[in-house]
Each structure stands twice: as structure tokens, then as C-alpha cells.
């Protein structure tokens, strides 16, 4: 692990100027290779702050037209906005049976989408779910604190281990490659989805995220998804993260468990005696 890290760091130093170009996907304006982020007191690129995506990836990471609300009562307020997609190459390389399962997921999304049940969102969905998240950066641990369901990720920068067991948010080890924070996450369960369109993964999911500062208030977020049980090859997503610059910006509670109790357990409510 240490050797790999060393090699990684060395490589990163050698080709550091190339990285922003290599990680860039067609849809995104290239980050200026000259941009060098401000440093934290311990000398690392400073990613601290409250960040959020500005796209419709949580509705569907693939390109999609606008559509009606899946819950009739919400009318236009719950309708799906169109999106150009965030998947590199446009389409997710599903294995044939997996594409079929995604379509079934989509057809039954009101019953099956874990987001509706206030379950932990998984990775990378937590990043683009639409709510803000805060990066809290220390030397040993980098914390990602998400507003949705209070989901939290610890990125181990020094005391790295294999995932001790499967979990919703996975087990994340991180390293710096020049300006880029690279986060390698494994140890997922097979219960979270990638979006509201039923895009999914198995417990063989392996996510590599690259956070590259591209300006004082934007980060380029590149994700590589690997899951041989579901996809025919690794594939990529890319999108910018935008920093909250409001003076009073902060993560607020979205403890959604109480918002879904009636939905999940309402049918088990005691009925008044007849």
C-alpha cells in the first residue's frame, strides 16, 4: 500500500501538469492547468467548505428529457427537469441483464428507490443528490458531511485499512496526487442506487473519485465506476462542484427518518376498535 502510494505520488509529480487535461471529459470546460489551490496550514490543497452540484444527475445520470412527476399530486413541482447527462460517452455500459434490471427499477422507483425511504444515499450519489455537503479537512481524516440523512464519510489519509465490512457509504482511503484528492472507496453493500432512474450497482462496486480544484469556488469532480457484476467495463462521470459563498452557509439537519415513517410503517398503525 505504502509503495503504491509512493509510486502514485511520484507519478503524480511527474505528470502533474497533465492531470487536469487527462481527467477532463468532453462535456466540461477544462480546468486551467495553471490553477493552484490555496493551501491548508499543513500544505495541502484546501478543499474546506460547503459544496453542491448544479445539475439533474440525481434524476438520471444519463441524458434525459423533461418528464412528469412520479407522484401525481406534486404536479409541476415534482416534475423531472431535463438533463444532458454526466456519464462520459453518454451511456452506462451495462451488462444486458443489468440494463433490464435498471429498467425494472425505474418502473418501480416509487417502491424501490432507497432515497424515498431516507436510506443512506451511497457513493457517488451522495455527492450529486442535490443537497449541500461540507468538506472538513485534517491531516489524518477528511470528512464529507452530507445534509441528506446526515450521511457521513470518513476518508482515511494515513491510517488506511481494507473495508472491515460492507456498508452504505463504503470505506474510503484517500491520497493526494498533486492538486487532486483521489478517494478510493470499496466495501459497499448492494442496496444503494446511483440516481432516481434506477441506475444501480452491486456489492462489487469500486469507486475512485478525483477532486481537483479548478478555481477558488469550483472543483472538478471525476468519478470512475467499476463493478464487473453490473457493467461490461469501468466508466466515468464528471461534473463541477460549486462552493457556497453565502456568509452564513452551513449544513442544516435533514433528519428524514421521521418524514418517511408513515410511508414505511403507516399500514401497521393500530386501528381504532370497531
Amino acid at each position: 500500500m505504502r509503495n503504491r502510494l509512493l509510486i502514485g505520488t511520484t507519478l503524480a509529480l511527474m505528470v502533474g501538469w497533465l492531470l487536469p487535461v487527462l481527467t477532463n471529459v468532453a462535456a466540461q470546460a477544462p480546468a486551467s492547468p495553471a490553477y493552484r489551490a490555496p493551501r491548508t496550514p499543513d500544505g495541502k490543497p484546501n478543499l474546506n467548505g460547503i459544496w453542491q452540484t448544479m445539475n439533474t444527475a440525481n434524476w438520471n445520470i444519463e441524458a434525459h428529457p423533461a418528464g412528469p412527476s412520479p407522484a401525481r399530486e406534486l404536479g409541476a413541482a415534482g416534475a423531472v427537469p431535463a438533463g444532458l447527462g454526466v456519464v462520459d460517452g453518454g451511456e452506462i455500459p451495462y451488462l444486458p441483464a443489468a440494463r433490464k434490471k435498471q429498467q425494472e427499477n425505474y418502473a418501480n422507483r416509487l417502491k424501490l428507490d432507497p432515497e424515498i425511504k431516507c436510506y443512506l444515499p451511497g457513493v457517488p450519489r451522495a455527492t450529486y443528490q442535490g443537497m449541500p455537503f461540507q468538506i472538513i479537512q485534517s491531516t489524518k481524516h477528511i470528512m464529507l458531511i452530507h445534509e441528506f440523512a446526515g450521511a457521513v464519510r470518513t476518508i482515511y489519509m494515513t491510517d488506511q485499512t481494507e473495508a472491515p465490512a460492507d456498508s452504505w457509504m463504503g470505506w474510503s482511503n484517500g491520497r493526494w496526487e498533486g492538486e487532486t484528492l483521489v478517494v478510493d472507496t470499496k466495501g459497499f453493500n448492494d442496496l444503494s442506487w446511483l440516481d432516481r432512474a434506477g441506475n444501480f450497482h452491486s456489492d462489487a462496486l469500486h469507486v475512485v473519485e478525483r477532486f481537483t480544484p479548478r478555481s477558488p469556488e469550483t472543483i472538478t469532480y471525476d468519478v470512475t465506476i467499476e463493478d464487473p457484476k453490473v457493467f461490461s467495463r469501468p466508466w466515468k462521470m464528471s461534473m463541477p462542484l460549486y462552493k457556497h459563498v453565502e456568509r452564513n452557509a452551513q449544513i442544516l439537519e435533514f433528519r428524514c427518518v421521521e418524514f418517511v415513517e408513515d410511508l414505511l410503517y403507516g399500514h401497521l398503525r393500530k386501528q381504532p376498535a370497531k
Partner: protein
Amino acid sequence: MKRIVLGAVAAVFLAASVPAEQTPSAQTRAALQNRAVQNTAAYKAPRTPDGQPDLQGFWTNSTYTPLERPDGVTKVFYTPEEAEAAIKLAIQRESTQTEPGTTADVHYDFSQFGLDRSQSTFVRNLRTSLIVDPPNGKIPPLTEEGKRRTAQRAEAAKKLGGRWDSAESNQLDDRCLIMAGPGPPMMDAAYNSNYQIVQSPGVVMILTEMIHDVRIVTLDPSTGSPRAESRGDGRMLVDPKVRQWMGVSRGRWEGETLVVETTNFNGKNPFRGSDENLKVIERFTRLSDDTIEYKFTIDDPTMWTRPWSAESAMKKTVGPIFEHACHEGNFGLYNTLVGARLEEKRQAEEALKKGSK
């Protein structure tokens, strides 16, 4: 059921924790002196890269010391021997074994399926109560308004129905909404009382193992970390309309001590009967490499005739903290509701049978 599963998972990761010593060694005696404060007055905490006293790492506030002084106890401190005896008694009470194969044996046995307090690191303390003020170690009397609100709350709970009538009428921890750990104030949660603290310029984050609850303490830019990102005073104000389960926490450094003030509670998770006007003031001071002194003051003028204060500590423990996905695996709540409805059905059928005879 969820507790057993989660406890078992926790057991795997905490198995390396230090077991409680059974006899008071010289070391334990020293540890028992929570007032070791005086002895370590010269201690200066290491600094984070931005110059804050460093509170980072994995900690536990697990303890057998009760919040209120037990009835019949009049002194403030036990002797080390008395403290040991009290701990032993409490451990015994928690870990009583039943006869295998009997109905009574079907129960949560935390010493088997999880880690109870005695099996992991816990804070030793000569104090007979965590409450240090009022001096009698008891929560002060309620105000008249406090009594009215308490009665009102009991009435509202009664209207919601019995514990297993619905999810909403069950208790907060069974619903995976919030547990005793995160507070504030942060209290021993009977098991998994583990925390992780991470600091960054202008921010102290406290992750509570129980239901992955995170408190982000924003430091006052004027008195906080010297390199706190200055965003003006606007960030310190939160509209009183914003109400949260864990409130809104603001912090400042007073020398070696992190002072955190929390307001904007929603009052739905009362601390010993507090309401939404609760203000909690916490003071964290690192006393040694493995101890953070933790003091808090409860100020809720609508409920209590005076503010009251308690004192405990956080002990260094072994990380990492694993994901506590409570709601996602809450079969316990589902199954008890199903069971309660089936029992009602059975009783109704029985009554019908009796009636037709």
C-alpha cells in the same frame, strides 16, 4: 433485533478496547481521580496545523457515574474503594446472566452480542454524580411553567398511543431518530458511546457513532482558530425559526478550552425534560494525551428554576468508527409493530370465540 446486529458489528471493531480492570491498581486509583485535573495543570495540548489545541481522535464518554446523585448518598466523592464497589455493582446489574434454555434467557445480552460498558474503555470518576451544581447533585426543581409543559407533554404522548401502536408513538431510539450520545450535552449511551473529533480551520466536527450523528461546531471567526476563514459575523447568527434536533452549535477557544454554545433546539428530544428554549454550554479541555475534560451547563429558564452543571470526561479509545446505519436495518421497529397487530387480532378472535359460546 437491530441492536443485536449493530452491537455485534461494533464488537468486531471495538474488541481491541481496553478491558476494565477488576481491582483498583495504582494506575486505576490515579484514573479514578477525575480531579487529576490539578495534577496535570501543566499539560498543554498538542496543536493542530492551524494552531488550535488538538482534540482530534477517537474518544468515549462511557461511564457508570449517574447524572444525578443516587438517593441516600450524601457525599460528593466516593473513596476509591467505594467507587470500585459501585462500578462492580453496576456491571453486575448490567451483565446478569440467565439460565440457558429458559424463556428468561431470550434477551439482549450485550456481553455476548455486543460490548457493554464494562467490556470497553469507560471513564472512571470518584464523583457520586455527574451533576456538580446544584451541590446536592440533583436536577433543580421545575418552574411553574416547566411543570405545566411537562404535564402537557405527557398528555400529548398519551394521545399518540401506546409504544407499539405506531412508529410515531414509539421511543426515539427505537425509531432510529436520535440516541443519547450526540446531545448536546453528549451523554453516555449505555453502549457504543464513541466519538470522533476532526478539526479544520474554523471548524470542530464531532461524529457520534450512534446513528452517525455529526455536529459541526462553527468557530467564531473573531476568537476562533487564528486562520479561520473570515466570512464576517453573518455566519454566527441563525434565525430562531430554524430549529434542529441537535440545535445549532457555535464555538470559541478560551485558552486551552473549547467553549461551545448550542441553541435553536426543536425540543423534540428533551434532555431530562428540557424544551426548545434550552441553551447548552459545553467546555472541552484536554487534560492529558488520553483525557478530555467535558463540562456542561444546562440553561433553560422556562423549565428550571436555575441553570445546572455537570462534569465528566472523554477517554481516548480505539478507532475507527464504523457506519451505524440504524434506520436502514430497523427490523426491530417493523417486527414489533407487526407483532402488536397480530396480538390484537388474536385477542379479538379469542373474544369473538368466547362471545359465541
